[in-house]
């Protein structure tokens, strides 16, 4: 009974929303393109929008709760423009359908139209099916999404294209109960693309009645020929040293092959044979190729049992700050063992880079500004949980920081390391579900007074002086009771 009344209240709210905004815009066309992958799925939705009222500025899109859960990157643009539009979740705590407000760059006149492109990257949206695979078997994944793009406005026509990376699609859902929108085949497949729609004359759909009547899940089961890389936990610590003119970055990476779990056991013989004939199983991670920043030195790669000798680094020379880096230091990283489905591998990767490549001084205030990337992307991987710790020089004050996207939590602490007396301020930030798109810099600004710079030499000098003073005195003390 309580649930029913909840539903009832929900529908009332939905209807209220529909009546309030339903008339502002009309979608002339919605095209959703889903690029399937392993860990990451890219969803691009283009809304062709016509204003039904003059001076309309806020366009609203709707995402279901499940969609919002998996979406870890969301960006809206006017088609053809590079400026990113502001997207605000109207009620982050709501359940069911979330309404996101997009502020257009300028208000639309009556009957004027605009194309809005909503780019989203979904993580954890696919899962291996079957759940286990032996060394010789291929890897197949399943992707689940909703059939219709919801919108608080009336939609003239909408379609969803799902593109698989390989043409071998094992199965896909044929939607039922869509006669209201189309009389043709509700779904067509050509090559590696499965298209749902076009569906015509979709009424405003953000309401319980429409969802329960028309919305339905669709599944796509497809072959995927690359390993599914997941980083369950990433801990990055970035240590800024003014005395060493150095930015040290160290990542503790826990890597996991999220593809189908290995059926049976690993056979080295099979693996060697497959490698020899260059047809490795698709779900093996034999190694990773990482693009580290240019100009790095002292790169280290070790795990709990010491240095991992099987890696190659091709370092690129340093590039000045803010210039376009067209070169990377390429690290060919090979784990101790090929990572089969369901296997884990944790390691530590770190390097030093010149501080001038990522730091600058604000002339007007004398503050230092340092940029530290949130993470160094591992291609096609998702980071479930990330902790970034930025350690500032000892004695840094007026610490401020700006993250490229909101962090889950942030805290300040004190970190004590070599030759420290009072410890260094450290910022700890937590993120989740990071993708390649999240590899953007965090900006930290702080000022360091001269006295703080001098702390280290003074501490060292005092230490040496005390040792000498102690020796000076100790030499002259005679504890003998009777002299002979």
């Amino acid at each position, binding site marked *: 009974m309580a649930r029913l009344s909840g539903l009832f209240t929900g529908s009332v709210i939905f209807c209220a929303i529909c009546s309030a905004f339903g008339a502002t815009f009309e979608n002339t066309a919605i095209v959703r393109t889903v690029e399937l992958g392993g860990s990451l799925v890219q969803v691009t939705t283009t809304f062709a929008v016509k204003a039904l009222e003059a001076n309309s500025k806020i366009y609203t899109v709707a995402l279901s709760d499940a969609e919002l859960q998996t979406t870890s990157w969301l960006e809206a643009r006017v088609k053809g423009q590079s400026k990113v539009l502001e997207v605000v979740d109207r009620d982050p705590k709501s359940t069911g359908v979330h309404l996101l407000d997009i502020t257009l760059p300028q208000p639309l006149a009556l009957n004027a139209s605009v194309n809005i492109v909503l780019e989203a990257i979904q993580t954890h949206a696919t899962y291996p099916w079957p759940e286990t695979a032996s060394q010789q078997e291929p890897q197949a994944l399943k992707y689940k999404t909703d059939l219709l793009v919801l919108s608080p406005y009336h939609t003239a026509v909408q379609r969803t294209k799902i593109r698989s990376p390989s043409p071998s699609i094992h199965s896909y859902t044929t939607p039922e109960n869509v006669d209201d929108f189309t009389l043709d085949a509700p779904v067509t497949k050509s090559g590696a693309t499965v298209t749902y729609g076009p569906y015509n004359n979709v009424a405003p759909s953000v309401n319980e009645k429409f969802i329960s009547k028309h919305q339905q899940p669709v599944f796509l089961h497809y072959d995927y020929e690359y390993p599914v890389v997941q980083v369950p936990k990433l801990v990055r610590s970035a240590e800024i040293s003014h005395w060493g003119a150095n930015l040290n970055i160290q990542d503790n990476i826990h890597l996991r092959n999220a593809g189908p779990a290995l059926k049976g056991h*690993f056979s*080295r013989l099979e693996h060697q044979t497959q490698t020899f004939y260059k047809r490795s199983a698709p779900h093996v991670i034999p190694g990773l190729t990482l693009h580290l920043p240019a100009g790095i030195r002292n790169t280290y790669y070790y795990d709990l049992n010491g240095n991992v000798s099987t890696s190659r680094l091709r370092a690129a020379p340093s590039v000045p700050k803010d210039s376009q880096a067209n070169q990377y230091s390429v690290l060919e990283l090979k784990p101790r063992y090929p990572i089969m489905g369901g296997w884990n591998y944790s390691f530590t990767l770190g390097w030093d880079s010149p501080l001038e490549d990522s730091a600058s001084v604000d002339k007007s205030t004398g503050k230092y500004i340092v940029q530290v990337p949130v993470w160094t992307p591992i291609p096609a991987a998702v980071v479930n949980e990330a902790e970034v710790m930025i350690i500032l020089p000892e004695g840094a004050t007026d610490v401020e920081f700006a993250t490229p996207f909101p962090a889950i939590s942030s805290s300040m602490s004190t970190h004590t390391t070599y030759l420290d007396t009072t410890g260094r301020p450290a910022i700890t930030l937590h993120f989740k579900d990071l993708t390649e798109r999240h590899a953007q810099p965090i900006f930290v600004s702080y000022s360091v007074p001269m006295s703080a710079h001098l702390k280290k030499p003074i501490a060292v000098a005092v230490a040496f002086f005390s040792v000498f003073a102690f020796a000076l005195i100790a030499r002259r003390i005679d504890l003998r009771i009777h002299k002979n």
Partner: protein
Amino acid sequence: MSAAIPLPSDLSPVTVANTASLLRIIALALISGAAIASRLFAVINFESIIHEFDPWFNYRATRVLTSKGFYEFWNWFDRTAWYPLGRVVGGTVYPGLMATSGVIYNFLHALNLPVDIRNICVMLAPRLQCPDGLGDLHVRVFFNHTSCLHNFGFRFTKEMKDESAGLLAAAFIGIVPGYISRSVAGSYDNEAIAIFLLMFTFFCWIKALKLGSALFGTLAAVFYFYMVAAWGGYVFITNMIPLHGLVLILMGRFSSRLYVAYSSWYAIGTLASMQVPFVGFQPVSTSEHMAALGVFGLLQIVAFTQLVRSHVSSKQFQDLLFWALISVGLLGFLAVVGLTYIGVIAPWTGRFYSLWDTGYAKIHIPIIASVSEHQPTAWPSFFGDLQFLIFLFPAGVVHCFQQLRDEHVFVIIYAVMASYFAGVMVRLMLALTPVAPVRNGARVRGIFSLDTRLTIVGTAFFMLAFFVHHCTWATAGAYSSPSVVLAAANPDGSLHIIDDFREAYHWLRQNTPETAVVMSWWDYGYQIAGMADRPTLVDNNTWNNTHIATVGKAMSSSEEVAYPILRKHDVDYVLVIFGGYLGFSGDDINKFLWMVRIAQGVWPEEIQEPNYFTPQGEYRVDERASTTMQNSLMYKMSYYRFAELFGGKPATDKVSIAFFILLLANMRAVSLDEAYTTENWIVRIYQVKKEDVLGRDLKSANAFSQGRKRKRSRPMSRRPPVV
């Protein structure tokens, strides 16, 4: 004797002393630098890693000590070792090494120097060389300093020269390969710290003896305690000092100095050593320690006689008394033997017997004989470890006889004992290495003080230079390999690292349940515990012969016998080392006969060594290998699917250069699954199957799951289902 180059006469003595002191400090600093640098080959050629086997346990224990504190370490019961028995680590370990690292760790962290515990452990051995050189110098300087007291006229020049001998000795000991073998960076073993303590204890003892000082006697006792806490080889000190005392008494050199030094050292040292839980009451209850007690008693008697003699006049009576008391001492010795016989005092242990009879261990305790460092030393290794010190060594000993004061007697005894022990056990070469340089420091110094003829200086210089060259070569080549990784050369000459051990251990660590029990031969126990962090059945702390024999039996029996053993011990994974693919000769097939022998020691009816040889008495692994050999679990695990690598051509084992043709093709283990094999096949890990849930025997369960029908024509397996 005159100095080779006379000192300018217009210098004030203070200037000379200060200059000498400065030069000495610089020379010592350089020697320390050279000693440390030559021990870093391992880190530079490879990496900062703990070497070999035992150091992995020490490292693991140190980590427990630093992370949980000393009391937790003291009470540490390690459930993962000797599964399912466990091991009381706090009571079965010499904690000196770990405590030293723990103190250094805490000290550095208190100073805000967060050095990783691994680096502290890796660098502990080289770091100790610095004070070691110093300590040795002091011994040497002290010998010479006191030796020239009578020669007032040339006191300064003389002291310079003697200190130069001390410096030479320090330089020798700093780089001599025999000692480097146990103190390279990463060789985090008890010996690394113990030799330094051994030297320092002897230094304090000599000084106490010379001065008759209770302070230095106490210091010797304190360092003796440290030594007891650090290494089982402390017994060497426990017997060397009494022997020295006894020889001095028998030479008629008893003095109050000897009495004070020995009594203070023995009383305090023994009480202190009993505080180490692993030693406990051994100092008063085992034969190894009885000599020290006996000499202590003898000294009291002799001292008492001296006291009586100083008060009574009749000389004949006193002589009679003296000899009577000597015989009382002998009676006491016989009493000790009697008590040992009855059983009050524990007799000598097997390892001790094997010091006197090199064949003893092979017959009675195969587990001791199976360790390569318990083998008698070969001649080349004397030269390899000591180079020209070995042939100058006798000259140094002769040199001692020229003066023959108390401390020279000590050095002579030390030289004789150490040479003997180095001869019977490779491991004890270590005890010899400090004394050889000390003697040769004096010898070479003697050459320099001769009227300098160019040829002699040239020869001496050539020998020294060649010595340095040899030490560097031996250190870099022979003693700096971590043995956890193997090195090979790429076609372009660069270093190629074969890292199969860590690959396998890391795989175990990350992809098996934390409670999975791993069975392997005991050599790899500490490494599995340290790197893979998994429970093991047996490890390098070979305290339970039966348990090791059980593993040996499982490895050397057929599957039908081995499987119940594996299941009863909850074994989840079996790890074997296989060198046939790469030509790595230290593999389990090579050690296999030791497993057989140790198992035979406990189950003589079930395991017989001759069954593993061909009728011609050869140890073969190819198709002519004996049936018992071919059916053994070890053999099957080593060669499982090995033949398939060769695609129909005869398979080749690169270690034994054996060729297989068809034998291996049909070999299948029924009760084990291959779980992981490393890149070069060196480590192979098998998972033990659980009993079939339907109660079938594993053979038919396998056949069913592979879709094969059981052949009805054959009689059914007679093997009872395993419960």
